[in-house]
């Protein structure tokens, strides 16, 4: 199961993104708002760096003891009447869930937004059961009607404008109203309300599972996850194995970091903590509950220098500050997980073969690392990925040769000094008015869009030597 969205070369996706003016404007505007919101919240707390350190410490401890906490979680869920299925692969998870659906003979399934179900391709797998699957997050619903993929992990339909959405509603659901967001949302509310009421099975993701009580915490603004967990008698939660915390107290800290970092809110409208099956005489909530805990490549990171990638709480703040994401959009990453965290996580989960451009889709500016509420050194991990790709011998031949040269040059003062003397004359044929507008070889990519200042005749070191001599004379 590849995390790839489409079978196209990376550069093609980049080009498509760059040429999509609406998307770029939308992303740029969204980034501005998200960023301002996050900074305002951080400022209001005053000691944001302490919060980040606490977030990091909690995540580090939890992932270091992930076997213990998952064991505890599963015991607690079982105690509260739930089934727990540990799935090593996407296929295992999907086939277990399919089996539950088939046993229930379910006709309609409602889902709340979940990136892990995108990752394992659950909706495609469920299509085989014949049941209708309805995404209930407004953004996800829009994309589902259209057959499109999320381009952002928090606001999945960021790349769509309201005209496009009106058109989709009209074509797929006979909508006759305007493109006013309120009217569009009111229409969606009505349509989805009837889906909720008819659903046999609900499927949710998981923001934080609480080990001490077997509780699943869901974070939304719309309240759709609450609808999913209230109406159907059968409920399935799919969680990436690392989405766990020891107790309610850590859940609280991380939820606050999540909502502030994700959308600049102190909390979202709905934070709901569900535990197992409904109690005796309770009318709502499931009487048949299944928790599916998914590895799907996450364990590749355990015990390696990529382990901290599992600390991610999926707030998307790295995406919201990333200049590369701003210009190319989410789809260009060609992975379920876009942006800096996507570039780090995707190759960990899914290997380099399909994703070896991702670690290079970064100028290593470090904005992601600075924004991350749990202090994942994202840009350093991108360098680590590059090291792995080099170690595997998977970089282009010309680059290998060049880097060998760079190594020799930097390692030898003699070779280096020679270069300071030769640079000027070597580039002379391309130099005009001390500027190179159309450089040779590797400079071509540079001069395609910008000039290059030509190296002057005299290097600094030669100036300094002369100055010293002059001084001595």
């Amino acid at each position, binding site marked *: 199961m590849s995390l790839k969205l489409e079978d196209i070369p990376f550069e093609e996706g980049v080009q498509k993104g760059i040429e999509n003016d609406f998307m770029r404007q939308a992303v740029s505007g969204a980034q501005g708002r998200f960023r301002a919101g996050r900074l305002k919240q951080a400022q209001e707390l005053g000691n944001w760096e302490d919060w980040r350190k606490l977030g990091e410490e909690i995540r580090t401890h939890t992932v270091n003891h992930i076997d213990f906490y998952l064991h505890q979680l599963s015991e607690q869920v079982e105690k509260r009447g739930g089934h727990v299925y540990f799935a*090593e692969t996407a296929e295992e998870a999907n086939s277990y869930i399919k089996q539950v659906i088939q046993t229930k003979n379910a006709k309609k399934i409602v889902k709340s937004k979940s990136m892990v179900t995108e990752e394992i391709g659950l909706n495609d797998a469920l299509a085989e059961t014949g049941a209708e699957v309805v995404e209930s997050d*407004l953004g996800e619903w829009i994309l589902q009607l259209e057959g499109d993929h999320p381009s952002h992990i928090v606001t999945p339909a960021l790349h769509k404008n309201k005209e496009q959405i009106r058109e989709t509603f009209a074509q797929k659901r006979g909508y006759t109203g305007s493109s006013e967001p309120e009217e569009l949302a009111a229409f969606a509310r009505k349509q989805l309300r009837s889906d909720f009421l008819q659903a046999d099975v609900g499927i949710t993701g998981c923001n934080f599972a609480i080990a001490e009580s077997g509780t699943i915490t869901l974070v939304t*603004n719309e309240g759709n996850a609450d609808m999913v967990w209230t109406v159907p008698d059968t409920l399935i939660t799919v969680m990436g194995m690392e989405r766990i915390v020891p107790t309610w107290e850590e859940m609280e800290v991380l939820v606050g970091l999540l909502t502030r970092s994700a959308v600049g809110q102190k909390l979202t*409208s709905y934070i709901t903590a569900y535990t197992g099956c409904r109690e005796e005489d309770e009318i709502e909530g499931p009487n048949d509950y299944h928790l599916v805990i998914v590895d799907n490549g996450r364990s590749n990171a*355990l015990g390696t220098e990529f382990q901290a990638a599992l600390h991610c709480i999926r707030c998307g703040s790295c995406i919201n500050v990333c200049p590369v994401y701003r210009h190319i959009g989410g789809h260009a990453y060609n992975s379920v997980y876009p942006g800096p965290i996507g570039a780090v996580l995707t190759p960990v989960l899914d290997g380099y073969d399909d994703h070896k451009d991702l670690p290079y889709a970064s100028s290593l500016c470090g904005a992601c690392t600075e924004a991350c509420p749990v202090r994942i050194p994202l840009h350093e991990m991108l360098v680590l990925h590059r090291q792995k790709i080099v170690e595997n011998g998977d970089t282009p031949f010309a680059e290998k040769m060049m880097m060998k040269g760079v190594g020799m040059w930097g390692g030898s003062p003699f070779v280096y000094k020679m270069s300071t003397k030769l640079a000027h004359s070597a580039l002379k044929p391309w130099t005009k008015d001390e500027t190179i507008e159309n450089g040779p070889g590797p400079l071509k990519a540079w001069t395609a869009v910008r000039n290059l200042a030509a190296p002057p005749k005299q290097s600094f070191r030669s100036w300094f030597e002369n100055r010293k001599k002059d001084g001595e004379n």
Partner: protein
Amino acid sequence: MAVYNRDEFLNKLAAKLGRPRRTEGVVRPVWRVNPQYEVFKGMDQEELVDIFANQCEAIHTDFVRTDVAHLKNVLVDVIKSYGGESIILPKDPRNEIYGLPDCFNELQQDTNIHVWDYTIGKENEKIAERANIGITFSDITLAETATVTLFHNKHHGRSISLMPKNYIAIIPKSTLVPRMTQAAAIIHEKIEKGELVASCVSFISGPSNSADIEMNLIVGVHGPVKATYILVDE
């Protein structure tokens, strides 16, 4: 109830971590920094009320303050402003303590009042779905985020605060704490003592909303479109 593939799965994780698997003895450390306890530390209830009231504005929620004696009038006004019609509420001893039945007497004859009754099963949910207004008491109230905390049970269905178009929370002043930290600590302590946590604990901060269409804030998506928090001095 069953747990599938656990040993295989967790043994592998432990192996990757380079140590034997652990099923006991892991102690949650004392975290080196704990900024969560510093927020609004030492503030009295009045200061918390101010913070709470200010935050209500940020979350598009109307804030009304009253005392027990005047709650009836205030509640009647809010219900009328939402158009009355039909109301659903949990079966909660506080209904009587705070004089809600008395208040409902003030409403028009044709206002439908339904108190959650588990003996009629799913019918409760259907009533909630049709109801114009849901009313609940807050069990713990978070000042920082203007959040009401609800512990649901057989007398307090989840749809009461979720499905009607309008939501009213009655907030006894004594339920006010600085932030979610205190609520989490209360729940954690109960769990440590062996108590079972409610099958559903909701932290609700205002009406439902979405920014999924061009980042425009739309208030009222799946849940309530409007919300009022009534803070009651005791």
